[in-house]
């Protein structure tokens, strides 16, 4: 984005306005911040674009997606509806359910709360990007083994939250697992099996307490 000529998006960006004030003003402003470059980058990011569709390039699961999107299009909408990556689900579209969770630079985020244009230049990973050559990741495999899913609609979100957790901490505690999944809702009630799956990946497996008694 910072490479784009601001003139393309309108002559009244704050950058050109600041330019018109002369270097003294810019220097004064820059003195308040870490560096002139950082300040300029910040100003660039505030330029007005849209409301019509603009070219957007997203790096998703290692692939470059070139799309034409209105600036108000969310990352979730861009993934699901402007490309065919429907793994991230829309459950609420307002950052409350977590079904749309993806990783941006290894951080789990609600893709419904990120504009697609903001996600440019970052590494985006969706649930489709986890299994390489059909081989499930440890988290995915544990979900299958422990039946940590039912209808499966929340599952991609839980898997992304847990994958991000295990990327930064190979042996989380039960509380850390709960914390990592605090932003994900499941209505079928798979949480006990999700805990079992995650604890198995953490190297601290617990057994189900289910007991089958014959009717004597």
């Amino acid at each position, binding site marked *: 984005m910072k490479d784009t000529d601001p003139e393309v998006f309108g002559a009244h960006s704050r950058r050109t306005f600041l330019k018109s004030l002369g270097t003294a003003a810019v220097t004064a402003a820059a003195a308040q911040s870490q560096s002139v470059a950082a300040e300029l980058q910040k100003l660039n990011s505030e330029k007005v674009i849209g409301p019509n569709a603009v070219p957007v390039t997203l790096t998703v699961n290692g692939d470059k997606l070139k799309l034409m999107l209105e600036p108000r299009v969310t990352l979730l909408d861009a993934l699901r509806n402007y490309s065919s990556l*429907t793994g991230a689900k829309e459950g609420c579209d*307002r950052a409350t359910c977590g*079904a749309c969770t993806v990783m941006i630079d290894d951080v789990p985020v609600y893709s419904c709360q990120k504009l697609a244009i903001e996600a440019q230049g970052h590494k985006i990973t969706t649930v489709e990007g986890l299994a390489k050559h059909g081989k499930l990741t440890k988290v*995915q495999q544990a*979900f299958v083994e422990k039946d940590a899913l039912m209808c499966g609609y929340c599952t991609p979100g839980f898997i992304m939250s847990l994958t991000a957790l295990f990327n930064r901490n190979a042996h989380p505690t039960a509380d850390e697992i709960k914390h990592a999944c605090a932003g994900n809702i499941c209505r079928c009630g*798979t*949480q006990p099996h999700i805990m079992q799956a995650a604890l198995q990946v953490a190297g601290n497996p617990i057994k189900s307490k289910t007991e*089958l008694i014959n009717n004597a």
Partner: protein
Amino acid sequence: MPSWPANPKYISHETRRIDAPAKVTGSARYASDANPGGWLYGMILRSKWPAAKINSISFEKARQIPGIKAVVLAPAIEERQKNSSDLTLRYYGEEIAGVAGSTKQACLDALKAIEIDVTELPFVVLEDDAKADDAPKVWADQPNTSPAKPKESGDVDKAFSDCAAVIEGFYTTSVQIHHPMETHGNTVSWTPDGITCWASTQGITSVHDGLASALKVDQSKVRVITEYMGGGFGAKFGPGPHGIIAAKLSREANAPVRLMLTRFDQALAAGNRPSTFQKIKMGAKEDGTLHAFQLENYGTSGIGGTSGGGGGAGSDVPAPYIYKVPNTRVNHTAITTNAGPATAFRAPRNPPASFAMESAMDDLAVKMNIDPVEFRLKNDPSEIRQREYKIGAEKFGWKAKYKKPGSSPGVVKTGIGCAGSTWGGGGNRRTRGEAQVNPDGTIEVRLGVQDLGTGTRTVIAVIAAEVLGLTPEQITVRIGDTNLPFGPGSGGSTTCASISPTVLDTCTKALQQLQTQTGVPDARGENWFKACKKLGVTPLVVQGQWQEGLSSSGAGGVQFAEVDVDTETGLVTVKKIVAVHDCGLMIDTLTLESQINGGIIMGMGYALYEERVMDDLSGVVLNPNFETYKLSTISDVPDIEVVLLNMPERGVIGIGEPATIPTAAAIANAIANALGVRVSSIPITPAKVLTALGKVPAPAKA
């Protein structure tokens, strides 16, 4: 006549869900993922008035929004307009119109551009307000309250005077919202050749028939596909107004339309569990046997109202629920309000019945100084549940843990409680199946049913594998398509009991025919591929159907709960649930355990968190989203122990519903046991706990 195999390899064992890999990799395609070429977004304009008369409506400006391809009236409004009846909107969220456009953003703009002029009308959204004589009438031609129909057996008044102890309580339950993670919706393509609908549904046939009749299209020209769907819990039957709107938009736009409800829509207009307000008087004789019971109950199904809501969505609860009392008097009043209609919700009528009755049971047990488990053993007529109480009490450590109510020391008090459930279920006798055995040894089993996440695909694969001596992974299961042999909707915990006998019959016949045709005496297991090869170039296609004697109905279960209640904050923490359930012959104990966990967690939400809040001044739902409508999260989930009472001789019985019924009652009883006072209204919020403890005043009636 086939019978269940004696020493099964897969049946009654743990089998991994066969579609789990598709779900964990994001390749499973839900209705909301369908993307037929050129599809458009669909959205619905909803009433922002709890009651209003439409004077005029214009789509002119909406149609001019760039990207908008179709704008249609909602079917009910169109109908009223055709019949020149008054165009009255009766609740906040009622469908008015639909728009379809090439982007979501265009649709949002178009919804704002629809011009509508209304006259606002008086409305009523709270049950007690709607009962008043001077309340605004929701439907002009009928009262808000249904006529009294008291049912009486025995001599109740005399019986109460014969009782050694009598309790009275007023037990109330909230309106609960289904909130499946995938909202209601469809992707619909209506062309001159017919309608194809990718539906998020519990009943592909119900959507098929509903679309055909509403749109006057031949049934043979409608196809409904549900490869995967994101939860229903009773609310996803039929096309719904949104499905019909999507189809009409598709026809007008000449393109497929995907119309999924928003989460807000879901809270307003996609169904709910009715509220109940149950005034119970109950008495027992000296020996502890129940002798007299009286219930006066009212509740609302929203505009579904006085007919009780239909489809199992009434507020009238079975009473005295699972108990037999010789003298009973029961009266229900259905209250109509200006709110979204109720619809079937996992075990309709049962969780509120269980909550109130089991609360009353504990209140009476306490009054008579009888242990609550003993009191149930004395009064519960079900032999199976009696056994379950004994097994559960042992496992839970009931005797060691039980203390007199309120005697737990300290600020955080511990309590325990229990409750029982019952459910019918049973199989659909018209269920059909088909197996295609290919010469290369692959096999497809086809049924026109759908998998809600309960494990339907896996059940089919397990039974087929068992009969044919293969592994479940070797079975290709084709479901979720009305082009397949007829299967019933998934409601009432009937799916497993419908499909299991059907698959057994179909695969048994396929095996017999394969053996006859190829001359291989036993084509199972290691002989399978050799036999299939002998088919030459023609696959074997065999039909089967549901058979008598392989399934049954009538599942039960009991649950025990242990809670901590913080008497300073009012916060309840559920520590442990022990659930003892029976469902006859179990097919897959792994997905079965998932179902029971799910029922418990949903029941816990009903006990502690879930409540639709209506604003009596504006008539709107105040918590139409997950910030304010609280669902149980992973941190809330207690330690769960499941005990399955294996009764293969009964055949297959469904478990989806019975597992959610007694949880709220068991938790409520545990809270009462901890505090020594009862919070008789669910959800049991911290505010209600503190009110019951006398630490904060009760909220004034608005």
